[in-house]
């Protein structure tokens, strides 16, 4: 069995699966249950200065899609609503009882040097392994100049990171908000400030849905709602891209990344790790199904690594980064055509109508008066739409038909900016 043990900026954990800073890591009771279930580490729910915040009733909104109960989850819960001392005591107690597990403490205090100087020694004193700076929460705290309000200004990110590195010996992970134009700006700022790592993505600003009877956004608090932070499976593609952008950026290349965003299975985790993440953080999936999901994540990742001959995480972490490139470098001479396996076709007609209405009119629906679906190769541009709408796995496959030549946009005659090859 592959070795899943994880070393991330000096933080050791038996596996790369951590629980993200969120309700599941709010207190000792939950965290102990998580460790019992097998989680490799936790990022303790964000601590702030006393007096502690208060939370509202009705905190979550969920997007359902096609029978999936939580395709996306939105929350308007703030940081911990317990006194600082209570949290610190519990962190100390849990870390002592579970020394092999990663204990990272998430922090959010006002954007001034004194506040950070005040809280950091107290966290360090608990025996925690690292701190994570919550520069991401897009709701509530940002109205008070914290969370995303910091994360959205690269200069603030850099400054606070500097303070943290100045006032603490602990590894510093900067958690980035996706509510920005270019994630690389914040990552570069964290890097300049001396961050040991970045974690991303925090939640995306969102309104889950609108209650058409109440004429109010959800979750609705006594008739009113506010924008919240969106997470869960629906945000994963956004997170994958942001992780990849940081992993392949010249300035931040090699900066350790702890990936967050809709991770619920070992495969999700492996995909983020292939794009350069050294550890992954999970929240929504655990909130949906409980801590037991880590069991399959451990087993599944180990079995997959065995099947690929990867002995340890480092053998595949970052393996896909080199293959993420700019559009202009893609091979324009690569050509594929859809092929419908007639033995598997159930004749639903979805490929036909998708292609007919919205693509290239490349799939016929009839032959000799009989219902029959077939690709017209001359019209097929290899867009894959039919393959995605087909409800039968493996029924529509894409067949390569080019002759292995290469030519990209940089040298294409239609490109006014082309370079002569």
């Amino acid at each position, binding site marked *: 069995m592959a070795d899943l043990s994880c070393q991330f900026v000096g933080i050791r954990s038996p596996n790369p699966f951590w629980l993200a800073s969120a309700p599941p890591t709010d207190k000792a009771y939950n965290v102990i249950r998580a460790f019992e279930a097998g989680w490799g580490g936790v990022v303790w729910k964000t601590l702030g200065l006393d007096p502690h915040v208060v939370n509202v009733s009705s905190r979550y909104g969920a997007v359902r899609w*096609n*029978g999936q109960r939580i395709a996306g989850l939105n929350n308007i819960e703030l940081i911990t609503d317990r006194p600082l001392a209570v949290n610190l005591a519990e962190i100390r107690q849990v870390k002592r009882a579970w020394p092999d597990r990663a204990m990272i403490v998430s922090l959010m205090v006002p954007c001034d040097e004194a506040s950070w100087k005040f809280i950091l020694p107290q966290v360090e004193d608990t025996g925690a392994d690292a701190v994570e700076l919550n520069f991401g929460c897009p709701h509530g705290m940002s109205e008070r100049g914290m969370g995303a309000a910091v994360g959205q200004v690269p200069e603030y990110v850099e400054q606070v990171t500097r303070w943290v590195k100045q006032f603490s010996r602990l590894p510093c992970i900067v958690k980035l908000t996706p509510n920005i134009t270019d994630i690389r700006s914040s990552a570069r700022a964290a890097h300049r400030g001396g961050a040991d790592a970045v974690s991303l993505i925090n939640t995306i600003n969102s309104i889950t849905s609108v209650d058409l009877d109440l004429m109010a956004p959800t979750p609705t608090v006594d008739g009113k709602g506010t924008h919240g932070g969106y997470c869960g499976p629906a945000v994963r593609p956004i997170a994958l891209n942001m992780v990849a952008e940081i992993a392949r950026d010249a300035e931040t290349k090699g900066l350790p990344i702890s990936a967050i965003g809709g991770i619920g299975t070992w495969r999700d985790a492996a995909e983020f790790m292939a794009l350069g993440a050294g550890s992954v953080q999970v929240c929504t999936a655990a909130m949906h199904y409980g801590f037991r999901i880590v069991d399959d994540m451990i087993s599944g990742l180990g079995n997959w690594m065995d099947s690929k001959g990867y002995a340890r995480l480092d053998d595949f972490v970052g393996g896909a980064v080199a293959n993420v490139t700019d559009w202009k470098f893609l091979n324009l001479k690569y050509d594929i055509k859809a092929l419908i396996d007639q033995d*598997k*076709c*159930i*004749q*639903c*007609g*979805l490929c*036909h*109508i998708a292609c007919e209405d919205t693509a290239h009119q490349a799939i016929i*629906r009839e032959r000799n008066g009989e*219902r029959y679906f077939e690709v017209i190769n001359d019209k097929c541009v290899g867009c894959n739409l039919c393959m995605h709408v087909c*409800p*039968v796995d493996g029924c529509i496959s894409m067949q390569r038909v080019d002759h292995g030549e290469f030519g990209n946009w940089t040298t294409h005659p239609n490109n006014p900016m082309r370079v002569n090859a």
Partner: protein
Amino acid sequence: MTRKPLGDISAGRLNQAALDRNFADLAPPLDRHRALIEAERCFYCYDAPCIAACPTGIDIPSFIKRISTDNLRGAALDILTANIFGGSCARVCPTEVLCEGDCVRNRGEDKPVEISALQRYATDWVVQDGVRLFQRAAATGQRVAVVGAGPAGLACAHELARHGHQVVVLEQNDRPGGLNEYGIAAYKVMDFVAREIDWLLAIGGIEIRTGVALGRDFSLSDLRAEYAAVFIGIGLTGVNALKLAIEDRSDWVETSQRIEEISGIGAEHVGAALPQDDLPEGVRYAVDFIAELRQTPLAELAVGRRVVVIGGGNTAIDAAVQSKKLGAESVTMVYRRDPQAMSATAAEQAFAQHQGVTIIHRAQPRRWLTDQGVLAAIEFEHSELDGNGNWIGSGDFFRIDADQALLAVGQRLDATPVQGNDGPQLALRDGRIVVDGDYRSTLVGVWAGGDAVGGKLDLTVQSVAAGRDAARSIHAQLSAGASSKQSGVSHG
């Protein structure tokens, strides 16, 4: 209950609680949660095969999509515009050979989307809440007679009423509904039929006269004289004869009645059946048994202790299963050909067997064995295929003791009412009324549809399609007539 050795036919074999349980809704309705789960199984096929398989052409993917978005009114309109009896069809259609049979989910897996259950979910609330979905057009002043208040007649009447015509429906029974009211197993439709008809009639412009029969109380000529158009939807009110022929087998000493070689069980026209009075005591026609069951408190309905049902269609299944549910000790269905040839679908056969009915295939009845005129047993002969594909007797005889025999060998058009007048005659072919593609009969101003005309399958859903399309044809004709009258052209 005492057991009589002979002619043991009696009511009250089960107590009311057991009867209630046995005759409870066969397929309870889906709640919203289950309906949404099922609706999400629909692939929303393009030009879906299920639509083509529905005789009324309901846009099934569309109504299912509407269910999934909680647009129940839209779903109901999809269904009921195409098929005003969408509620009862959701209960009685053999969907395994219609929409669900052609669902693409049958390929690669074997569980189609439960279309009938979803259709019921989308329509039940309309009937239950008396929701008005259709508006009558302004009155045209045209009067149309509809003979027969079955699915064909009422579908025709509703469509005509929508277009503003005044419709008089003439029904020989005491209640409207036709086969839905008199001929379908109770557990399939419960008390839905009457409520559905009340809802349908709420559109207005439809007058129903019950207890009046064509050929007895009025003639076709009368109707043609009085109304702008006539629609005939009288169904199949006759039953096929059980032609039993028999070589003389004198070893059965108690045989009191000769019966002739059976032929044409099922749809084939084999002539008028014996009147009930000429049958041995204990033998009756399944359609009469079902009609009585539907109109009688179950506890008062007599059923045999040992019942034999002869036939292989849905009527045979309904008669057999209901006999069992009434408390018959044993129910045996006997069919002369193989299971594939039965017009009852495989699902119906399996259902009957699950309910405790024994089905014997490939056996034909030869003689009633009676004791002083009372049925004691039935003699059958195993049948086999000859080289020409005909089922013939194999010479292997057996008998089944029976207190009651129910004959379900098919119904036929009783043509006397439509032909018993001095005027021009409606053309018949193969025992059914001849119509063109617009359901026009050979008599000007007379349309016909439903089982009296027949089609691929004698099904409620097909009758509804015929009634609806005939109404559209009638409407087109009346509209053309009205406009041509305005222009001074008259039609004879």
